């Protein structure tokens, strides 16, 4: 089907938005049935030079992030720092309160009885580390993110069930309506949709 025919069907691409519409086009989205297809599509898009894009899947796909050219997650580093802080903080708390603030003779044990202090140090290490991991996850994922343009796409509700989407943002330097649309179609998706933000 030619581009013109499609235009008569879905009214697209409309060269100039009419004054009534305040919507802005934020990108195109292609729908796939299997995660391998999505993966392949992502690789192609990357080689095609697209950078500002994202993939959506109902379950994690290990290679996808890499295929989309996303860099490594900083979560582990943050967790490590959190853990160290927790451990040191914990020991400081124990040492300060037991040996400095108000040293008391407890059962003839030394004020700084480090062997007895270990368990709490360990627990605090784990606690703070886990909290920072979780927080990092939220912040890096910009969660909570209740409102998002992609939710406007009707098909997208299956993104959490059994569909896989490739999303190319309009902000991408290489984005160009006709070209990108053609490119996405070229990947034999189930469908291609435009993502509007009103």
């Amino acid at each position: 089907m030619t581009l013109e025919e499609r235009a008569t069907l879905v009214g697209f691409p409309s060269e100039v938005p009419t004054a009534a519409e305040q919507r802005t086009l934020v990108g195109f989205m292609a729908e796939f049935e299997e995660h391998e297809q999505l993966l392949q599509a992502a690789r192609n898009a990357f080689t095609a030079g697209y950078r500002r894009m994202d993939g959506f899947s109902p379950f994690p796909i290990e290679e996808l992030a890499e295929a989309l050219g996303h860099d490594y997650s900083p979560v582990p580093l943050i967790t490590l720092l959190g853990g160290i802080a927790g451990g040191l903080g914990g020991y400081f708390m124990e040492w300060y309160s037991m040996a400095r603030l108000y040293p008391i003779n407890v059962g003839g044990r030394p004020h700084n009885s480090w062997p007895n202090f270990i368990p709490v140090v360990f627990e605090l290490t784990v606690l703070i580390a886990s909290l920072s991991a979780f927080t990092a996850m939220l912040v890096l994922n910009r969660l909570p993110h209740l409102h998002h343009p992609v939710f406007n796409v009707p098909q997208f509700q299956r993104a959490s069930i059994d569909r896989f989407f490739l999303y190319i943002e309009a902000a991408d330097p290489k984005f160009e309506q006709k070209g990108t649309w053609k490119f996405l179609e070229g990947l034999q998706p189930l469908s291609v949709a435009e993502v509007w933000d009103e």
Partner: protein
Amino acid sequence: MKEAAQVEQVKHTKPAPALDLAAIRARLNGERGQHYWRSLEEIAETKEFQEMLHREFPAGASEWWDGLSRRNFLKMAAATLALSGLTACTKQPTREIYPYVKQPAGLVLGEPLYYASSMLLGGFATGVLAKSREGHPIKVDGNPEHPSSLGGSSVWMQTSILDLYDPDRSQTVTHWGEISTWALFLSDLNDLLLEQAARKGAGLRFLTETVTSPTLAAQLHDLLKRFPGATWHQYDPITRDNVREGARLAFGEFVETRYRFDKAAVILALDADFLYTHPERLRFTRHFADGRRVAAGKKEMNRLYLVESTPSVTGTMAEHRLPLASSEIETFAWEVVRAMGGPVRMANEQPLSKLQTKDGSPWIRKEAVAQWLAALVRDLKQHEGASIVIAGEWQPPVVHALAHWLNQALGNAGKTVDYLEPTEAHPINQLQSLRELVQDMESETVDTLFILGGNPVYTAPADLQFGQHLAKVKRSIHLGLAQDETAGSSTWHIPQTHYLESWGDARSFDGTVSLMQPLIAPLYGGKSAYELLGAMVQQQPIRGDYEIVRDFWRGQNFWPDFEISWRQALHDGFIQGSGAPPKQVKLKADLLESLPRGGEPASGGITVEPAVGSQSAKQETAFPQVSPRSFKVLSGDIEVNFRPDPNLWDGRFANNGWLQECPKPVSKLCWDNAILISPALAQSGNLTTGDVVELSLGGRSLRGPVWVMPGQAPNAVTLHLGYGRSRVGRVGAGVGFDAYALRTSAALWFERGGKIVPTGQTHLLVTTQAHHQLGSPDREVYRSGTLNQYLANSSFVKSSVEIPNMDETLYYPDEYQYAGYKWGMSIDLTTCIGCNACLVACEAENNIPVVGKDQVHRNREMFWIRVDTYFKGPLDNPEFDHMPVPCMQCEHAPCELVCPVEATVHDSEGLNLQVYQRCVGTRFCSNNCPYKVRRFNFLRYSPYDKPWREPMYNPEVTVRWRGVMEKCTYCIQRISAARITAEKENRRIRESELRTACQQACPAEAIVFGDLNDPDSKVARLKAHPLDYSMLGQLNTRPRTTYLAKLQNPGPQTDQGLGGA
């Protein structure tokens, strides 16, 4: 019984099965080495515990009901959220403070004042030192200067403070039971005085307890002058008639005998409990202990031979103890006399043979007794002039006479024994005196009866039926502390003053005149006997007891300058040098011939027949029915003994919670009395502790639970008097059974021919030291030996101890050195007689609550120091070992390490502190305490909001709330006070000015406390002694409280075979 019974209803549905005592005996005999055990149930290792398990599970249900309505202190202190605990996180409420309008001179608020006074028991005075804070007495201790206290205390002395504040004390004059007034009484008194004046006092009678008070005696005597027809009777349920009559038999006149135990090497006690029930108990205890104080460097000890029917406190101290029925002891005494060469013609040439009656006492062997006797006599002969023979109040006059003969024969008179003018103002045969009174009442010749103190309706012998006859008296006036049985059936009842409320005087055992002075105005407007009698002499104006006593002594022209000496006497609490002078007496020449031949020994047979009548129990619903067991009815030659209760005495202390909860010596039974029976009897009757039996004697009978008592004479059962009161306050109501019901004037102390019929029911008896054995001796908790062992190898107890080395620790051993003071305690197991004085003293000093029977049953008693008693050796005649256990104040305290909130920590003097308001109550500390000396407020025990309790609290000690752990702190409040005093004077604390409550109370001075950093302090020296050992030292707890192992001094001829069939 009924009251208590209802409480128990829920609890007991199954009996413990009978014990296989034969098996136990076999096992014990099989044991090698020192085998300690604690109770029959455990060593039996029958199905017992499974049974108990199931039997006790309903305790849950009982918490549901019984827990909510309990007739004891808990009821007064209904448990609620103890808000005082919330002070941690709430805004403090505004409190008010009320200054005096006129502040008494000499009173410094916040500082204690001490007054010397005297407490009376059985008529004899014991000097006390009463502590008062802000005008109310809070503690009573022995007066160190006083000859019959020497600073020691008895349980009764320590707990007397509680009687003073008892909310159930009689609070008003009553007339025919209606509330009345003193004024109304006085007007009635006038009428009767007019009547009596006309009739010269015919029909006027006075009934008192034993009177030693010179003033009171004088008052009575001149009343008798004014009313020639009147008579004065004395009766004391724990009467010393036998002593008096014994002396008369021996010397033709009554003289008091004073024993010098400090000078005695060998002592023979014929059923004499001279350490606990004798009027001179405290002095005797001190001297007896001094005679055994090896730790003080002595190389010899006195040796105690003792014959008795039921284990007494004194009995537990004996090297050689021979359990005989009380009635057999006279025969035994005759035997001793004969062996000592007395010209005795016995009806039966071999009376000893009668002592071995196969079924009556299956355990005892003729040779054994003979051997025992021989050894005793040999020993006595070797120690002529250094021995003592003493007979007990319960023994008939003959035995006393024989004892006198023996003392003379052994040349003890003037050395270890001397004779005094009688201390009593009017020594008479009290039983006779009471009989006469009752006859007069019966013949209705008595129209006015003054009962000055005492509770005859309850305590008089059952056959005299005093109560019924009292009803016949037109006007009876009862002066008493409580609205008791007698008050209930008297016309008038006048509330009496407590000895801490009134002036007075009385003589102590050795005749020393001791003065009473009040520490507080009568709380409930009570009157003293002096005032009552005074009112009969002169009413305008009424003279107070102060004037009466004072004027009497002024009249005596005793001193050159009355005022000065009187002040001195009040300060001392007694009149110096007023002791009775020694008296020269001469033994009757034909004494032995003249003596009546009573006391035929046990004829033997106890008939045992299967119980049939136990169904008869059905209509008696007080106890739940239980599955029938093959009970036996026991009758025949069973001897029933009556003894004053170790706690309630004759019953006068029945409403005293401290005494009710105080575990009786040896049995550790509390909140009940029981029928003590021997293992042998239990075996033949197939009975076990807790079984309720019907005990009948001479046509009278009572029901009560039995208690299988090791060391009890085989065919003797013992009843403790003083329980089962019918008119008594909230605490004593429904506790125990009334043993007076069987006690007749014919036999005040013992009588043959008892009959035991099991009812098939059980009653819960609670003890503070429940059922278990000490197990194998290698626990080494309790260590003992003989003098010879010690002399051979002074540190023989140490051999097995190993306190881990300090350098075995991961930490720095010198982290804490206790440079300032270093408190420590040493407890001498050799001299501890297990009298509980320390326990109650601690209770009084440290505001320790009473928890009631149900809670004791759940092992929640709160005593900070407990006196453990272990048995050792054969079941029928074991050795008794006492062990007071306070907090050990470990330097490496296991409790502190596990407390999550620093509620228990150390201070720089090495004390293991308990900070109550920081405690959240995890109870971890108690779990980790190897000595289990910590006590927990499981519910709200302290009635701190009760107006009657408040003035009695020691203001220096925090009252603990619900949910808080507490424990012994070495009386830290006393340490602080002493430290502050010393600090103000920039000096160290003197050893003399700081003693813990238990140490101060101990009549034997077995407990020593002090500064370990002071090398010549007493405690430091004791710790250096080879006998010193620390309990469970191998746990590296490093206790500050250590023990001196128990030494005994058995004679060369051991008494093998007295135990074990």
